[in-house]
């Protein structure tokens, strides 16, 4: 099966290499986790896909036709912008699907009125509920209460077979519970 995304011996960084060489693949239907302690270069590896970081050697290969949804480690939530949860989901196409029960009552509210954990779950659902082929979640459990993390685990277990998920996290218990494969990065 053709992978959605493949890293082949990628060494990535900024002015200097920060992480690598790292190799992994994400195939349709798979949940792959990049796990490592803070500062191990997980987000730098992700930046190799978006152009935010520099690839010193190796290759980042993506399927010829691939749509990606991406949830940032530090979500962008501009102050005072009157976007509702419904409107945020519409941006990524996630408004077509029934939202998690924790989220449904919050969607009519402005996103700048939500708590950090509520907004994090909204961003994660905007990513996972959309129509992209590959969903990338960068530290999705940040700011989340245990009950919210349970909801996230449930969403991940219900994902569609033709989608791939790449999770970047330092939470060993979380990635062990949801991922099909875990790529460990040294500290």
């Amino acid at each position: 099966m053709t992978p959605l995304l493949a890293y082949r011996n990628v060494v990535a960084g900024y002015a200097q290499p920060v992480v690598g060489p790292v190799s992994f693949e994400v195939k349709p239907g798979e949940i792959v986790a990049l796990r490592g302690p803070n500062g191990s270069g997980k987000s730098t590896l992700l930046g190799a896909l978006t152009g935010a970081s520099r690839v010193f050697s190796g290759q980042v290969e993506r399927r010829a036709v691939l749509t990606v949804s991406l949830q940032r480690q530090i979500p962008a939530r501009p102050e005072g912008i009157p976007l509702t949860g419904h409107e945020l989901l519409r941006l990524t196409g996630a408004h077509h699907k029934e939202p998690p029960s924790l989220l449904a009552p919050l969607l009519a509210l402005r996103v700048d009125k939500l708590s950090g954990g509520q907004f994090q779950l909204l961003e994660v659902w905007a990513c996972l509920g959309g129509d992209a082929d590959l969903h990338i979640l960068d530290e999705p459990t940040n700011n989340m209460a245990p009950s919210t993390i349970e909801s996230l685990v449930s969403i991940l277990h219900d994902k569609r077979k033709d989608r791939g998920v790449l999770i970047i996290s330092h939470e060993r218990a979380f990635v062990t519970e949801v991922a099909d494969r875990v790529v460990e990065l040294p500290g």
Partner: protein
Amino acid sequence: MKWQLVVDPLFRVPFLNGLLLAVSMPLLGAYVRLRDEWLASLGMAQVTAAGGVVGLLLGIHPIPGALAAAGLAATAKGTVRRSGNDVFVLLLLFGWSVALLGAANSAQGEEVSHALIDGQLYFTSGAHLAGAAALLAAVALLLPWISRKLLLERFFPDHLAANGENPFRIHLAFDLLVAFAVALATQSVGVMASFALVFVPPWAAFGGASGWRRALARTAAVAVVAYIVAFAAAIGLNQPFGPVLVAALLLTGLVRLLPAARSRA
């Protein structure tokens, strides 16, 4: 008081010109505020005023000079690729310096510089109206296309890049649209009133709005009401239009006190 002048046919073209600007400028301002680049309009307005003065010094009409300066400023800002307001502060100071130096070295330039600062809506012509109509058409055509991308860029900053799209082109297209809009508005209502049209209505409307579409509608509505009040008051009380418009727009700040309506989005 000369209230009968408000309905004088002599002022129809200026009224319509300002009315079209009062719709399009605040809508652009909503997206400028979304990007946290609210100082853009003042920086651009000052640069376009400088362009108008420099145009006169070079022997060309102020409007093409202002438009050229706006295009150069937007391109320079896009090339630097920095978000935030620092670039616009530099543009503002640069434009102010060039405009006043240009005015000091040309008698005609001084007159034009004064007009650009104060606004000269009542002396605008069919050419200004055509420009404002073209701007509104451009806003109506481009915003539905660019709106989702600008919102995506703000709330999901890596989304476009991760999907192989170049955000730079979108930013440049929007910056150019704002620059040309401010250039046209500065020629009609002056530097500060152009800035106020971009900054104040979204600021007033966003406070209590629940939902982006409602905020846009409220933004345009408060700007149009403020404009109509200012147009009538400036003529009726024989006051300069620019400062009256700015004062009327500031009063729209009261809209922030309105309670938020629940969204049906």
